[in-house]
């Protein structure tokens, strides 16, 4: 790929800040769309659909990783290491499960992440509640596709979230400044602002 020589950025200096306008080295990648152009998003979704035959196996592997992390907590209790490993496993599932076709598992994983992340003293995280989250995720995956499984999954994840939130309210009762952040909904937008100009 040919690279052009780097152009100098434009610089405006103000009393307490500088505004720097770097040359846009990526502008060569913006080209005029033609009516017969294939939709790149549809093409990428098609590519992902081809990959999807792997997803149930990947979901299973991620669940086994979470289960191993949960068993380590059960055997050795919470330490910096077991805490981090459990959070990381749950956090990966939270990010991936919906893509793998298990959106309710992602919701249960999010609830578990909140429990692990927002309990100020890790030694007070109730391991039965951790077990309930992990077992719920495994059950949702196992029963996926069965009649009424979706309804049960919704009820199960809602109850896990309610119990977790109630616990976090108590544990954070002396940290009111943190409470808003803990109980506020996510902020990240689903779609970036529309791109309208070059």
């Amino acid at each position, binding site marked *: *790929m040919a690279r052009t020589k780097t152009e*100098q*950025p434009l*610089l405006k*200096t*103000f*009393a*307490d*800040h*500088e*505004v*720097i*306008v*770097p040359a*846009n080295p*990526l*502008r*060569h*990648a*913006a*080209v*005029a*769309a033609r009516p017969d*152009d294939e939709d*790149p*998003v549809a*093409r*990428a*979704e*098609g*590519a*992902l659909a081809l*990959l999807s035959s792997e997803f149930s196996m*990947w979901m299973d*592997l*991620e669940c086994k990783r979470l289960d191993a992390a949960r068993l380590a907590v059960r055997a050795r209790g919470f330490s910096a290491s077991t805490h981090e490993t459990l959070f990381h496993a749950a*956090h*990966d599932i*939270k*990010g*991936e499960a*919906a*893509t793998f076709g298990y*959106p309710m598992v*992602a919701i249960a994983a999010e609830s578990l*992440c909140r429990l692990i992340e927002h309990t100020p003293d890790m030694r007070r995280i109730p391991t039965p509640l951790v077990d309930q989250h992990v077992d719920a995720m495994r059950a949702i995956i196992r029963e996926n596709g069965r009649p009424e499984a979706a309804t049960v999954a919704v009820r199960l994840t809602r109850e896990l979230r309610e119990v977790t939130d109630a616990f976090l309210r108590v544990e954070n009762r002396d940290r009111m400044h943190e409470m808003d*952040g803990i109980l*506020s909904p*996510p*902020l*990240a937008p*689903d*779609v*970036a*602002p*529309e*791109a*309208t*100009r*070059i």
Partner: protein
Amino acid sequence: MIRIDFHRLRFLVIDDNAHMRRIVRTLLHGFGAREVYETEDGAAGLEAFTHYSPDILITDWAMPIFDGLELTQMIRQPGANSNPYVPIIMLTGHSEKKRVTAARDTGVTEFLAKPISAKALYQRVLNIVANPRPFIKTRTYFGPDRRRINAQNYAGPERRKGGNADVIRQPSLLEKARTSTK
């Protein structure tokens, strides 16, 4: 209307989860990208950034050795590397307000919360290519302008002080870099 010619762009994907790297790579190839490099932690990511000079960097937040936020801090150092302006997309399972604000204040260009979708990723890349933002440098921040909207009815405090500074000639970043290495 414009479209993005992905085969003219070079990507670096940094994520410790192999499944997620495979998904991102599949989407980018689906868009038409040919050059997609991968690493699995922040340290290897920084090395690959220097080696491959990617046009766009896509990084996870939570990773071993150093995380996506620390990686962004290291890249957003004027004069410390070849391209402190490189667009950085933070692709993460974190979506809480506190996290999004922290990523923005570290100099992340775009924030993309998992679960990833082809449409959302495409929009982020389109925004980076078609609507690049100027960079702002203050005593405490170096990164893309955090003001995406020039709101005429903004009623909050004005934190930036306008007016030209007394300094008439400002050395270029290159000159600054040369001076600082002497």
